[in-house]
């Protein structure tokens, strides 16, 4: 494999890499000047569409195609919302981009706003990123002062304002319509779709919601070209007309039980094993991996024998995971109890379910209660079947919820019990020798700490 040079992370480790001067010296903003001077918005849409760029936030939908869903000849306003609510456990690639190279993100925002004819862009930033907040605000101020933002950018007829909007520590605000509701000043309850945001979004106007890394990719495509972007990654499967391929560089977040946790840029399609061995220095303390989360906790679990799965948009699904998600790879070593892992996962989703849809609110809460009871030595084998049933019935896929949070809660449950059932059964039999076989209903334990 030819050596791969990081592009999205090129500012990492560069002194003052977050400043305008550094970004311009690296070739930044030149594509904006060229685009505003020579190209029509439709050209930029076409460029992004033909690059094959798929959204980096988790769902992997084609960015260019998403833009084309906006109504034609709309009198405006059209809004761009940049989703920087990055809250998926294990994920921190947006934080690195915003802290170390905020101008790359802003350049992507300018180009994307031009393409979608948006004149206002809101960057919805999670509360937990104060350094990103400061760096972004400083970068936005610099960009205004240099004429890259504001009225009639560089003498063109295009004007753009970019505003930071701060969240308040709620995972659901990363769901695009939850984000919109939150920005409007309401509780972040996701909306029923359709209408999709492209038709009726923020303030009931046509809206595009894109991830921070997607913005950075747009900037790089404008600078380096479609051919460059398509030369990286995994081409579309010719035998599968529904596979649009996985092109471009990707930021993989590696954490958990590895020697060197960190954010690593690699071509889409690197395997989990390569990532752990070549970038992460291997599983820590010379141990073996028991399980690996492929892309944030919502995506479920891969076993050790599945680690050669390519981490492209199609890969994790082939081994029963939900998808690539945020490409946050979390390594769980062989000394860790999978019961503890699932308890942690259930606690997260019980805490973060917004409470709007009953199957999710109750399903996440009861799955946590059951894991609490199992951990307290009162589990029964029947609990595993009930947990599976919860996993199979809550979510958008079974059709019982408005958004995908419940699918994300369900996947770790389904994967853990399917792939590690023996460990759960051993644990239950060992910790509850007199009651593991009971099948009659038993009372829940009083639990603390979910909220």
């Amino acid at each position, binding site marked *: 494999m030819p050596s791969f040079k990081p592009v999205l992370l090129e500012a990492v480790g560069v002194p003052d890499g977050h400043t305008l001067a550094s970004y311009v010296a690296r070739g930044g903003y030149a594509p904006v000047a060229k685009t505003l001077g020579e190209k029509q918005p439709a050209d930029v849409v076409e460029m992004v569409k033909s690059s094959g760029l798929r959204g980096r936030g988790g769902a992997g939908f084609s960015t260019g195609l998403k833009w084309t869903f906006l109504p034609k000849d709309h009198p405006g306003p059209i809004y761009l919302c940049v989703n920087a609510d990055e809250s998926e456990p294990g994920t921190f690639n947006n934080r690195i981009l915003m802290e170390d190279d905020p101008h790359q993100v802003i350049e992507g925002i300018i180009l994307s706003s031009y393409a979608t004819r948006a004149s206002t862009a809101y960057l919805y930033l999670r509360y937990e*990123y104060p*350094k990103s907040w400061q760096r972004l605000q400083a970068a936005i101020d610099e960009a205004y002062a240099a004429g890259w933002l504001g009225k009639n950018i560089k003498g063109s007829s295009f004007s753009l304002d970019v505003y930071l909007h701060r969240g308040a520590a709620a995972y659901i605000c990363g769901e695009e319509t939850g984000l919109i509701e939150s920005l409007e000043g309401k509780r972040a309850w996701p909306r029923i779709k359709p209408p999709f945001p492209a038709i009726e979004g923020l303030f009931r106007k046509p809206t595009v919601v894109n991830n921070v890394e997607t913005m950075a990719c747009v900037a790089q495509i404008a600078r380096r070209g479609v051919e460059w972007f398509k030369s990286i990654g995994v081409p579309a499967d010719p035998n599968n007309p529904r596979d649009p391929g996985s092109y471009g560089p990707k930021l993989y977040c590696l954490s958990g039980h590895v020697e060197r946790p960190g954010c690593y840029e690699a071509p889409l399609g690197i395997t989990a094993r390569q990532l752990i061995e070549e970038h992460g220095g291997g599983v820590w303390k010379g141990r073996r991996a028991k399980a690996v989360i492929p892309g944030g906790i919502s995506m479920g679990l891969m076993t050790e024998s599945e680690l050669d799965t390519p981490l492209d948009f199609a890969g994790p699904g082939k081994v029963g995971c939900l998808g690539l998600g945020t490409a946050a790879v979390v390594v769980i070593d062989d000394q860790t109890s999978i019961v503890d892992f699932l308890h942690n996962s259930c606690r997260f989703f019980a805490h973060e379910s917004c409470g709007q849809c009953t199957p999710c609110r109750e399903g996440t809460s009861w799955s946590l209660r059951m894991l609490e009871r199992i951990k307290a030595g009162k589990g029964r084998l029947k609990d595993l079947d009930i947990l599976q049933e919860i996993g199979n019935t809550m979510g958008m896929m079974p059709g019982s919820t408005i958004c995908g949070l419940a699918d994300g809660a369900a996947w770790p449950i389904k994967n853990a019990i399917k792939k590690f059932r023996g460990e759960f059964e051993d644990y239950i039999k060992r910790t509850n020798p007199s009651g593991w076989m009971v099948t009659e209903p038993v009372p829940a334990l009083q639990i603390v700490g979910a909220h």
Partner: protein
Amino acid sequence: MIARKKILTDEMVAKIESLAPRYPNRRALTLPALHVVYAELRHVPLEAVVEIAELLGLAPAEVQDTLSFYQFFPQEKPCGQVRAFVCRSVSCALRGGDQLLEHLCHANGIEPYGTTPDGRLTIEPAECLGACDFAPCILANDDLLASMTPEAAQAELEKPRGRAT
């Protein structure tokens, strides 16, 4: 008639109003307004909710509905001068996040979500802080405390620290 003492100062109102041109309606100022009040008072009492509602032309229940959803803004009393969020999500948990939280609560004689009697420190469990490369980690006001041991974390939390922005 005795004039009721306002919770929102002129400075807070000016700060909120300075953000108004960014949005096409005033309801979108709800979260920014809550943040402005919280940054000053370290809590958002009900009286402030009523005043924010008045300022934005909303019903107090609308502001309270939004506020309560996030479970982020304390209402009863201010949180400590240092509000420490201890991450308990998967990457930190794998490296001792739960033990870290337990140790810090024990060392400071408080329960999770509690504040020390001198009002100096609040400790709260948090879901993923997005710093999994530095697990286990803590967000203390604006400072990320990276790759913490229980002892190092306690020492960090005893240091004076700038207020959250």
